[in-house]
């Protein structure tokens, strides 16, 4: 699903965020990327989502070498990938429904299918009753779950999450992890970047630890 081979990323300002990073994530597997702030976790996720391209080595995602993917194929590539962020990245002026539907709308899914699938996705994260609400009317935990519903609605084979529990209390964090585990059990590869070591230990799942841009 994901393969990093001796990957390095040097930002245009000369800052080398990661170097010599190699790992694999298989379908249906859930792994944690851990490490202190500034270790390079977000950089690795950005390389997976093609928000950045590697400056060394090879990143293969869903069978595609990201360094060689032409720009015009990037949108279709991103539709095969769900993304969850710490500050949820929801559109504040659009309803929960519109926010969750967006990945299907950009993929030109027919309207009636969108309706069904938005409801199903919101049901999965337990927010069906807030379908008409605007994001600012929701609690932080609810906003994060809307973000998750949006990330999974297009049924991507791959889900990446950057500090998804950063703003959540321990109970909400465990709920979110529970959701992710359900997706991975359904066959989705899940990569979660977090600096919350307790969460990782509780889960007993595989951990890729990054320190100063290298796998430790």
């Amino acid at each position, binding site marked *: 699903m994901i393969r990093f081979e001796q990957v390095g990323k040097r930002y245009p300002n000369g800052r080398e965020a990661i170097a010599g990073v190699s790992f694999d994530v298989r379908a249906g597997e859930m792994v944690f990327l851990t490490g202190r702030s500034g270790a390079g976790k*977000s950089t690795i996720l*950005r390389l997976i989502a093609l928000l950045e391209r590697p400056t060394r080595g090879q990143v293969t995602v869903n069978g595609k070498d990201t360094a060689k993917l032409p720009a015009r194929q990037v*949108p279709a590539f*991103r539709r095969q990938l769900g993304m969850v962020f710490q500050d949820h*990245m929801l559109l504040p002026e659009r309803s929960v429904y519109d926010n969750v539907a967006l990945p299907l709308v950009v993929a030109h899914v*027919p309207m009636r299918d969108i309706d069904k699938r938005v409801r199903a996705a919101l049901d999965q994260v337990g927010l069906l009753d807030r379908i008409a609400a605007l994001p600012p009317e929701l609690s932080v935990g609810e906003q994060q779950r809307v973000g998750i519903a*949006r990330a999974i609605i*297009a049924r991507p084979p791959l889900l990446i999450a950057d500090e998804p529990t950063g703003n959540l209390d321990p109970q909400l964090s465990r709920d979110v992890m529970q959701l992710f585990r359900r997706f991975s059990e359904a066959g989705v590869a899940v990569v979660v970047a977090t600096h919350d070591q307790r969460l990782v230990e509780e889960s007993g799942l595989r951990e890729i630890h990054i320190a100063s841009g290298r796998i430790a």
Partner: protein
Amino acid sequence: MSAWLGRHLQALLFAAGRLARAPFGTAFTVLVIAIALTLPAALSLLVSGVRAASGNFASAVDVTVYFKRGTTLDAVKQHATELKDQVGIAQVKLITADEGLEQFRQGSGFGEALGALPDNPLPHVLVVQPTPDSRSADDITALKARLSDWPDAEIIQVDTDWIQRLNALLDLARRILAGTAVLLGAGVVAVISNTVRLEILNRRAEIEITKLVGGSNAFVRRPFLYMGALYGALGAALASLLVLVGCFLLAGPVSTLAQSYGSEFRIATPSLGQLGLLLAAGAGLGWLGAFVSAARHLARIEPRV
């Protein structure tokens, strides 16, 4: 197909919604566009009005042959028949001396006095009308030379000067019109391009998120293109209204003035087709303006997370 239509309809409705949300700003932009479109539209009506008033040039470039007195009617008829078969000749009309006198008598009011003349002083006349493709200055000169070769022709008269002058004037007017249209069209493109640019920058977050979840450039661009087209179309609609009101207000006074100079000039009211063309031009310029803006600004907005 219906999905495609739905997609575009959605983008159009979305664009309309954005415009409706800021009615004051929209109205101002539309007014600026309308003013820029009204000027060339009005000019083009003026030019087509002058062209209509100056009549059908087919009859205007007639060449008239006055025969020597004493030329027999048979000889003139013979010339007419020969001429009709030649290339470049559309029509040959014979006005006999008698017919000429009769016309003059009726038209001039000298009927009584003419009756007193011992015999008809008027010659036989042939009015020769070239075909439309043989009406250039050179063609006319050549025709005139051929007709002068007839021994019994007395005067060959071609009254082309005023036509040439009018044509030159119309040509000038058309060039001014084209120049104005290009300049003001570019102005419309610039205004809409700038308006759309501001809209793109305002909605940066939305564009980033849309791209993040896999929205293509085309998808992100579509509502902005519709927005530009909508601005242009609304501007053109207002321009049409201004032109129609202008026609209505000026038609009476102008035709009174023209009549006092013996001219048939009238302000031409724009046809439905012309109004449609203006609307299409407005929408097209708006689309172009939005496209320019989108090409410059949209591709640069990439998700930052």
